[in-house]
């Protein structure tokens, strides 16, 4: 059978983000392109955060999965243009919320993160808007820690980047 780009994308849909396993790498928006070279399929991905340790693992997982399906691949990491949370798909945002992580609320073009003004983050559990940030930095590079003042649950917020 001929291997099409769509088929590769179908396979890539099965590669989860190691830190947030409900998201596939396609939901995350880190797959830039799939290119067919002579004998290799080149998968071009972009890092979410520069120091994100998940990136190495993602590369290994892509390679392994394609190999299981008889496809030899090469993973290329490109930096430009820089990844942004705007590339998270709508499905990705929904899955994040269901998983208990509040999805990013604003486009990265807004400069709130620099001026220090708070944004409205709703609680992924009870949807209340009465929430407060506990820490700008959370358990992984991509998350902040929040607390809901209504249901009192702490939760992660996938920060705008």
């Amino acid at each position, binding site marked *: 059978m001929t291997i099409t780009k769509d088929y590769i994308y179908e396979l890539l849909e099965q590669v989860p983000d190691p830190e947030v396993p409900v998201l596939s790498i396609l939901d995350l928006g880190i797959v830039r392109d799939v290119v067919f070279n002579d004998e290799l399929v080149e998968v071009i991905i972009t890092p979410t*955060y*520069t*120091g994100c*340790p998940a990136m190495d693992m993602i590369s290994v997982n892509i390679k392994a999965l394609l190999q299981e399906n008889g496809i030899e691949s090469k993973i290329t990491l490109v930096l430009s243009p820089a990844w942004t949370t705007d590339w998270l798909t709508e499905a990705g945002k929904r899955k994040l919320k269901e998983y208990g992580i509040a999805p990013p609320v604003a486009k990265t073009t807004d400069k709130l*993160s620099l001026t*220090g003004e708070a944004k409205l983050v709703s609680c992924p559990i009870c949807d209340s808007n009465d929430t407060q940030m506990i820490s700008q930095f959370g358990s992984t590079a991509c998350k902040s820690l929040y607390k809901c003042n209504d249901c009192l649950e702490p939760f992660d917020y996938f920060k705008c980047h």
Partner: protein
Amino acid sequence: MNDTLFKYLIQLGDNSLILGHRLSELCGHGPILEVDMALTNIALDLMGQARNYYQYAAEIEGKGRTEDDLAMLRDAREYRNCLLVEQANEDFAYTITRQFFFDAFHLPLMEAMKGSNDERLSAIAHKSYKEVSYHYRYSSEWMKRLGDGTEESHSRIQDAVDDLWMYIGELCEVSDVDQAAIDAGLGVDLNAIRQTVEQNIKEVLKEATIQIPEISFKQSGGKSGIHTEQLGFILAELQWMQRAYPNMEW
């Protein structure tokens, strides 16, 4: 090999590596859990940035050295980080003040580096700028909280500012490496960002009710490889494993 680019990358990478290392020393030792996580998050960003610079430097050098060789197997004189980033953690006020001074410089540096004529350097800057804006926000908020906090926190942060003040002049000092990189269109003209750096620092210190020290004395030397004694201790910890058991891997 593009010697100018190589040296410029080393200078950038060393700042990120050494400050990242300092912050990583606090992993598991932060004053509270949230601060511990924040400082190690920042360390991780800086380590990631250092890797970007060293990987690029190793590629263009083309002598078979890897990013690890560049990070781990040079001697003190070959490190080109500024003196500020190698200073010890001391107390939390020190750690935050060191971070704040560096961020106040790092943010405009990354902003300006986006305009580098070197595509890859510009891409690294675009990426890092976003991360550094978080660092800057974090450290400047703590400066205000501690400065305008209790008598104890105010006096400690004032002491840290007084002690570290002599190291900030070096940040915007134009070294030979900087000048060559500016001339080649790939490096940031530090004279052009100096005003922003000073303004960043003054504004936050004012809001934090911290007195600006009247010290005009400036310590420098890191950018030409002449370091304070601190760097030796850092390298001893960073390198001993590779020195004792060459080529060992996890």
